[in-house]
């Protein structure tokens, strides 16, 4: 087992089977690996001191039953990092086992929880291997910028192409870095969890190549280009805040060996085109918000 301390916190949502599966996953995990500390989310929410200490001194595994992400929120509120996240609907699809609708788990539901726990332990063992983090030299970028209602948005002045899903590609020869724009990171607000693609994966233009999560929402990176993933920015797993701080630089997501950039480019915008597109979008949203506010006040 791992050479660092681990704890596990399930959402334990008792209003649907997904939450009960989350709880069962946590129980099955500590049954197999008693060294992992179990955190009760309800007690933690009540301010249990012992848990606060465990959370600070261990790596945290979060098990969420649904998009509400209650377990994730408890960690986020404490400004702690999530080491690994288990999301029940995703696992249910992966193992082709249904959670069921009833609050008393079916045999299939229990099976699902057991399977997830087994896989979780295996993956924790694997992540024991030192991960190598690849640092990329990022040159200084010149930006167009605009401030709207306290929000500050930037778009590089050159060297990037964009799709209308607010993701960028920075081509360099037959390779390219991809990532998300300032617009997307702003609409997510504080990003606390990132799911990166696998190295070696082949992707097509507009494929979903990864996702990132804030307390507010989950967003996807929709690839502007086709090709093969040759490296990923592992640092984002440790410091997801880089996506907020430096989305065009240190917050790069993945590096792609470009398959067909000239053709892909026909459907992409250049820097000034994207800046105009983004400005339009922001203005529309801001006007709409103002209208809603004034309607409320009327």
């Amino acid at each position, binding site marked *: 087992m791992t050479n660092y301390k681990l704890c596990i916190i399930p959402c334990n949502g008792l209003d649907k089977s997904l939450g009960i599966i989350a709880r069962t996953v946590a129980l099955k995990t500590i049954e197999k690996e008693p060294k992992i500390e179990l955190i009760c989310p309800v007690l933690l929410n009540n301010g249990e001191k012992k848990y606060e200490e465990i959370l600070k001194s261990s790596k945290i595994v979060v098990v969420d039953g*649904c*998009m509400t992400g209650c377990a994730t929120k408890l960690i986020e509120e404490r400004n702690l990092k999530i080491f690994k996240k288990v999301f029940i609907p*995703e696992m249910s*699809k992966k193992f082709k086992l*249904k959670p069921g*609708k009833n609050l008393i788990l079916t045999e299939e539901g229990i099976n699902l929880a057991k399977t997830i726990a087994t896989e979780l332990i295996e993956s924790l063992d694997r992540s024991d291997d030192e991960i190598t983090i690849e640092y990329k030299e990022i040159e200084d970028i010149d930006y167009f910028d605009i401030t709207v209602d306290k929000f500050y948005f930037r778009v590089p002045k050159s060297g990037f192409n964009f799709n209308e*899903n607010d993701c960028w590609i920075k081509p360099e020869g037959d390779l390219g870095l991809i990532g998300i724009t300032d617009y997307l990171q702003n609409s997510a607000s504080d990003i606390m969890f990132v799911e990166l693609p696998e190295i070696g994966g082949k992707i097509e233009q507009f494929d979903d190549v990864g996702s990132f999560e804030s307390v507010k929402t989950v967003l*996807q990176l929709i690839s502007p280009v086709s090709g093969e993933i040759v490296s990923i920015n592992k640092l984002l797993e440790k410091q997801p805040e880089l996506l907020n701080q430096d989305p065009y630089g240190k917050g790069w997501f993945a590096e792609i060996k470009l398959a067909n950039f000239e053709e892909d480019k026909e*459907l992409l915008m250049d820097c000034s085109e994207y800046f105009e597109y983004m400005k339009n979008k922001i203005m*529309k949203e801001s006007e709409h918000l103002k209208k809603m506010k004034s309607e409320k006040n009327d």
Partner: protein
Amino acid sequence: MGEGYDADKETFMSVPRKKIPWWPTIDYEKCDFCMECDKFCPHNVYAKTNDDNKKLIVKNPYNCVVFCRVCAKACAPNALKFPDKRKITKLIKKLRSEQKGESQ
């Protein structure tokens, strides 16, 4: 995101949004009406109904962001289907070149 959206006026990649058939389809054989997708989508695509067989429908398909698939993540029974992305990309290219032809 998605605020102030008027599908009639919107374009995606310069093509009228209404010409692009991209939105989720609910497989009612699989859906268990957990409503997670509706809770999650910020664009008001889904709507609840009183029909017991179709408690949830795709009400505003053109509000769906072309190429977005993120609500499918929330769906444990895998009941949400999206169109073939390649076909949609091809269609967008075709419509764009037609538009170019017209404007010349």
